[in-house]
């Protein structure tokens, strides 16, 4: 299905990533954003609030983040495409309800413009330290999809992709951007509506008395109806059966766990190959592969270029979707390469999964960064050089400090006896 021209402000703009995401949401067909302003994501909410009314969409500034995320789930149940926008502490406040949305299988998008943390942290500076929170932040078993854009243009393009994935798999989709990309201003091309592919809501249109809200299609995803449209619709955060009814007796609970909770995980896991988007370059003959995402992958390219100029065989694997994690791809590469280099603006998160999937076959080198800035390309180069020279297999994750960190923490903190 193509985008509705009413929602697409076709043209060439010089805008920041936040604004581009607001435009992307509208183009994707978003009808409602409930949010509570927080730096550095506010411009996205502002942009949407400004352009939404002309296209018949709505932005409501809610009283807080708990209300924001709840309003988004409500809107989704009512049949519209919807998103919330947040950062830092705001994202933490949303965690419980994200699990509720995953349980109800309501499609929605969360734009998280990551900032330095923990707590208030560095509100106007960048970070990538919410990656694991996006994956595991709410209690219980569920799966989500997370995408990491690296430019304002991608914030437009991948916001649309996020909406499409949310509708297709009926799960929360997180756009895990960061302050650097959000507040970066570049040329953004918004194409014509007929060049934008849109995933429509999976509406049920069979007989009313036959509708089962949680009976899955072949791809494990059930069809939806609009709440209030006359269908018998029961939705609850309780573990439920295909009718949506909570089931609390022992025997049926066994059945229920099989039919719902397991499916929340499997509908993403089993469809992972279709969901995962990677950008792979020069990995065929590589000794070292840089695995990165978001702004770090963009900065890494310069370090990779420099390393190749020096004759090092280095390739790159950019995780456009970070979750679900590309287990198979990492395992396959681990058998061929000497080492992975993983730059992250945190003290080690996605690198854990790189290590898990390399099964001890390749060295795994983390370049940690404390946030409030991005890696310098020379930091990436230095780690690549180390990785290509290290002939021993080293267990666990190897930390390769940035120049700045070396300056400050040469010896690291030491425990005193």
């Amino acid at each position, binding site marked *: 299905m193509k985008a509705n021209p009413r929602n697409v402000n076709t043209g060439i703009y*010089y805008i920041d990533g936040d604004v581009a995401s607001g435009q992307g949401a509208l183009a994707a067909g978003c009808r409602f954003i409930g949010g509570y302003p927080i730096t550095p994501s506010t411009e996205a909410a502002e942009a949407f609030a400004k352009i939404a009314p002309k296209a018949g969409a709505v932005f409501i500034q809610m009283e807080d983040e708990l209300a924001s995320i709840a309003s988004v789930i409500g809107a989704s149940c009512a049949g519209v495409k919807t998103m919330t926008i947040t950062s830092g502490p705001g994202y933490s406040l949303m965690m419980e309800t994200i699990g509720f949305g995953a349980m109800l299988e309501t499609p929605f998008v969360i734009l998280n413009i990551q900032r330095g943390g923990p707590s208030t942290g560095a509100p106007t500076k960048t970070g990538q330290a919410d990656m694991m929170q996006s994956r595991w932040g709410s209690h219980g078993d569920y799966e989500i999809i997370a995408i990491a854009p690296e430019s304002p243009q991608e914030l437009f393009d991948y916001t649309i992709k996020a909406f499409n994935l949310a509708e297709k798999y009926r799960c929360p989709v997180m756009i895990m951007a960061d302050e650097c990309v959000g507040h970066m*201003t570049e040329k953004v091309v918004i194409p014509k509506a007929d060049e934008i592919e849109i995933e429509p809501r999976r509406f049920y249109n069979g007989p009313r008395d036959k509708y089962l809200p949680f009976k899955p299609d072949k791809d494990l995803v059930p069809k939806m109806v609009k709440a209030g449209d006359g269908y018998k619709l029961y939705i609850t955060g309780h573990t439920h059966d295909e009718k949506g009814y909570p089931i609390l007796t022992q025997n049926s609970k066994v059945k229920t766990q099989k039919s719902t909770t397991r499916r929340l995980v499997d509908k993403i896991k089993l469809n992972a190959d279709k969901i995962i988007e990677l950008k792979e370059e020069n990995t065929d003959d590589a000794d070292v592969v840089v695995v990165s995402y978001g702004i770090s992958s963009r*900065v890494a390219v310069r370090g990779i270029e420099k390393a190749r100029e020096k004759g090092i065989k280095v390739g790159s694997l950019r995780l456009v979707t970070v979750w679900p994690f590309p287990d198979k791809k990492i395992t396959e590469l681990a058998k061929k390469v000497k080492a992975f280099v993983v730059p992250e603006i945190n003290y080690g998160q996605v690198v854990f999964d790189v290590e898990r999937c390399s099964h001890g076959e390749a060295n795994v080198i983390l370049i940690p960064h404390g946030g409030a800035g991005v890696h310098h390309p020379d930091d990436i180069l230095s780690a690549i050089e180390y990785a290509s020279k290290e002939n021993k297999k080293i267990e666990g994750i190897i930390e390769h400090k940035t120049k700045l960190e070396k300056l400050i923490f040469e010896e690291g903190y030491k425990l005193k006896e």
Partner: protein
Amino acid sequence: MAEIRFAGYGGQGIIRSGIIVGKGASIFDNKFATMSQAFGPEARGGACSSQLVISENKILYPYVTRPDIFVVMSQEAYEKFEPELKEDGLLLYDSDLVKLKKKREKIKLYPIPATRFAEELGNRIIANVVMLGFFTAVTKLVSKEGMEKAVADSVPPRFKELNLKAFNKGFQHAQDGN
């Protein structure tokens, strides 16, 4: 590739200046231009700056480390950011608002009383646009046509003429050999 820092105090259109030059370069001159703004948690007021990288190729590292060009419109911003200007960099400054402290040997100085010129044109709010005209003529990084389009595209229609006048005032000041 050129790294540029614009700096002044909140309200002078410093961020806007970065946006206009970036727009001129990337949309009208078909180059690549990445603009980032830096501000603290205290938000508005005080020294404010925007950083712009202009290149013929895709820009990978988005931040300015050692600017080739420093455009400054307040004393506080001058003192804060002057030390990072490259050894042989260009310093464009509002000569009524910035008093130079020490002069580094190889740095090229380009003074212009941009705010005074703007007041003479009727509104000091366009001082940054006077500076942009001056910047365009001095640096030749972005074409005059591209910059004029970017200025016109970035202001409300009823102020278009005034802004273009301000732009040309600054441009002419450089052409006159100042």
